[in-house]
């Protein structure tokens, strides 16, 4: 009777997740002396697991004289729930001869899924097949989920097909696996064939697409979901879509989703607010990012970091650093991304000492190991401040092999500081180690060799660029004007408004020449052609057509936002500054490496990109 009473009470604790009650019940059970009653002990382990007290569950388990399958299943599940899946596996491995039943197998498979370890997953799968439970649909469902999480949707499909009665959960797991691997047709086909779809299924498909970079597909599925009036009770799908907008720098879409978030009532949701901050920053609207941040009632390290990084990327370094002081005073622990943003911010304003200090503080005070990104930012800082020797020492001693952008940053610094011999050395090294993929790297190489009068190498660099450009896509810029997105490619546009664009650009150029003494800088064109041809090529760089279009068609006075796939060339950079001054408009260009805020004739990057 007593045992039944306790069993009942404990089950209530499990359902309601009341840890304190569970503990007091445990105390009573101890005093009465029935802790070794197997059903009671098993239930207690299970309750502790559900109340996220894995250590209690573990301890109790250790004390048990006799552990049956239920005890094992309970403790392993408890470990999984506490994110200690590594321990789940290691405990099982040392379980000396336990033949797992379906519950234990389930817990093991979930552990492998949590760890993303397909190696272990396959081993468990093997045990499952040879066991007497090999027809169990629930374990099979877990396997589908595990293979999906480990990026093996084909294996997941094989298991899935063997399930007799396929639940919505297993369908969803399979769809998720294909979506995350970017196999959109298969994911969509599976999704259409699902007998019952719920919010989770839609969410799985959408966030899978977002994760694999298929933002447009994610959006069209989202639109469909809205048309089917699926109730958005859980806002995860919204934050996924916001993430898609951030990835695509689609501010038109982003603002719409923001509106939806508000009207559905999720604007106080922490992770959605974090996503919105990041989205606005990526869409070049730092003011909106700041607005969201300042109105949040609760913030976590991600909120602070998103804003810091946003400010840093948009050249507002002092504000980013000021925010960092606030984080520290609020007792929030910064993470590695925070430091990337901070060191990046320092590099923009040449705060060398502060940058070095942050780099040290990262490992000393917070135990964060610097990554390649941190080193690259620090190198950038040193390079910009003329400390090339120190930069070289860093690049040779850092624990990661430097990649193309890292060397390019150093080369850029050499060129700027006029250290041509050093630059040539780096250039040679770059070429011998890599086949550079960014055309601007070739331009940089060519200029470095030219400054040392190594004409043979200059021609070689130009030739390599020429070979590359034949295969590579031309430069293009996209601009959002009102509710349309227009894309302009380099070269003379065939846009319906071509005449107006040409007229406006010509007029602006005349103004520039007259007022500011502008002369096109043709050194940015490496091809062999005469000066006039080069000027024409510069004239039709895609970002200029984009600006002209925005000036003609956009709301007067509003900021112009352009996204370019390549680095802005030096001449366009100068032109943008002039245009921003002449037209008194703010122009924000997001290029392949950073954001440029052109206002009143100046750029936020301080002419170093």
């Amino acid at each position, binding site marked *: 009777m007593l045992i039944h009473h306790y069993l009942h009470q404990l089950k209530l604790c499990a359902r309601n997740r009341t840890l304190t009650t569970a503990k007091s019940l445990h105390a009573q059970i101890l005093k009465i002396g029935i802790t070794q009653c197997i059903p009671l002990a098993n239930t207690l382990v299970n309750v502790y697991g*559900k109340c996220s007290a894995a250590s209690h569950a573990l301890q109790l388990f250790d004390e048990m004289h006799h552990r049956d399958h239920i005890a094992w299943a309970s403790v392993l599940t408890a470990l999984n729930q506490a994110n200690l899946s590594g321990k789940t596996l290691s405990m099982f491995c040392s379980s000396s001869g336990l033949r797992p039943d379906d519950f234990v197998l389930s817990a093991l498979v979930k552990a492998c899924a949590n760890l993303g370890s397909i190696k272990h997953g396959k081993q468990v799968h093997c045990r499952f097949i040879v066991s007497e439970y090999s027809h169990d649909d629930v374990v099979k469902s877990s396997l589908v*989920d595990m293979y999906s999480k480990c990026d093996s949707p084909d294996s997941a499909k094989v298991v899935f097909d063997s399930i007799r009665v396929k639940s919505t959960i297993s369908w969803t797991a399979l769809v998720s696996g294909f979506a995350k691997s970017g196999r959109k047709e298969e994911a969509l086909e599976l999704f259409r064939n699902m007998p019952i779809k719920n919010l989770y299924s839609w969410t799985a498909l959408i966030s899978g697409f977002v994760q694999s970079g298929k933002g447009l597909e994610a959006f069209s599925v989202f639109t469909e979901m809205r048309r089917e009036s699926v109730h958005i009770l859980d*806002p995860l799908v919204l934050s996924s879509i916001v993430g898609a907008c951030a990835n695509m720098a*689609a501010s038109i879409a982003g603002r719409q989703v923001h509106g939806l978030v508000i009207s559905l009532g999720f604007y106080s949701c922490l992770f959605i607010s974090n996503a919105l901050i990041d989205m606005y920053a990526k869409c070049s609207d730092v003011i909106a990012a700041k607005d969201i941040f300042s109105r949040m009632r609760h913030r976590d390290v991600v909120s602070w970091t998103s804003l810091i990084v946003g400010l840093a990327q948009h050249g507002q370094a002092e504000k980013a650093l000021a925010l960092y002081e606030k984080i520290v005073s609020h007792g929030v622990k910064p993470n590695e*991304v925070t430091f990337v943003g901070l060191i990046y911010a320092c590099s923009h304003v040449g705060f060398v000492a502060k940058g070095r200090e942050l780099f040290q503080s990262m490992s000393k005070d917070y135990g964060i190991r610097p990554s390649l*990104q941190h080193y690259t930012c620090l190198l950038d800082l040193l390079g910009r401040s003329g400390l090339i020797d120190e930069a070289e020492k860093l690049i040779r001693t850092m624990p990661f092999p430097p990649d193309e952008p890292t060397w390019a940053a150093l080369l850029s610094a050499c060129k700027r500081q006029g250290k041509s011999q050093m630059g040539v050395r780096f250039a040679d090294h770059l070429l011998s180690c890599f086949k550079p993929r960014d055309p601007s790297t070739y331009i940089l190489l060519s200029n470095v060799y030219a400054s040392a009068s190594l004409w043979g190498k200059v021609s070689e660099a130009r030739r390599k660029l020429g070979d590359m450009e034949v295969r590579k896509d031309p430069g293009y810029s996209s601009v959002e004007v009102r509710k349309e997105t227009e894309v302009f490619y380099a070269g003379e546009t065939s846009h319906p408004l071509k005449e107006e664009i040409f007229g406006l650009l010509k007029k602006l150029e005349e103004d520039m020449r007259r007022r500011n003494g502008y002369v096109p800088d043709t050194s940015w064109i490496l091809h062999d052609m005469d000066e006039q041809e080069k000027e024409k090529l510069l004239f039709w760089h895609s970002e200029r057509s984009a600006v002209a279009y925005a000036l003609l068609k956009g709301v007067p006075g509003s900021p112009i936002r352009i996204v370019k796939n390549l680095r802005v060339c030096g001449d366009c950079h100068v032109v943008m500054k002039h245009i921003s001054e002449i037209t008194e408009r703010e122009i924000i260009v997001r290029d392949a490496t950073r954001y440029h805020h052109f206002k009143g004739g100046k750029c936020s990057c301080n002419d170093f990109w």
Partner: protein
Amino acid sequence: MAHFTARRKLATVLTKTLSSSTSSCSSFSTLSSRSRFAVPLLEQVSSTRTGLGPCYVTTRPKTSGSGYSPLNDPSPNWSNRPPKETILLDGCDYEHWLIVMEFTDPKPTEDEMISAYVKTLTSVVGSEEEAKKKIYSVCTSTYTGFGALISEELSCKVKGLPGVLWVLPDSYLDVPNKDYGGL
């Protein structure tokens, strides 16, 4: 023997912490009250590792191996082609605008909020009569704001007005019925 019906719920291992506490909605009949979801999602939010939701997982992993870095890939992810198709949600035509306003404590009454909405819009459209005609939806609970049928130029003017928090392109809340929501 103890029952382990919980085991049947596959998703129990994958927990997701919802840190939001959303206000209850009273203005829309289509929405039920949002409660913290008991059944965790199949998507595992990798929040324990990187502190960020799934939307932050970079698509091109870098050498450092960390889940997210906003500086990882500042260039937009266009899958090798720019998004020529403009992405628009149903009902978004850049003529309907959701204007969200901010009220300080003590919170005004519903009527006071609504008259604030009308007053705000009046200052850009010219007359109160016109403003009342242009307002197509109103909410004072889930959020404090209204929907206005105005041009994009006018919407930009509204942005700078006192008490205005956001001016965003509105879209259908109830898509099949082409309803922007609100009252």
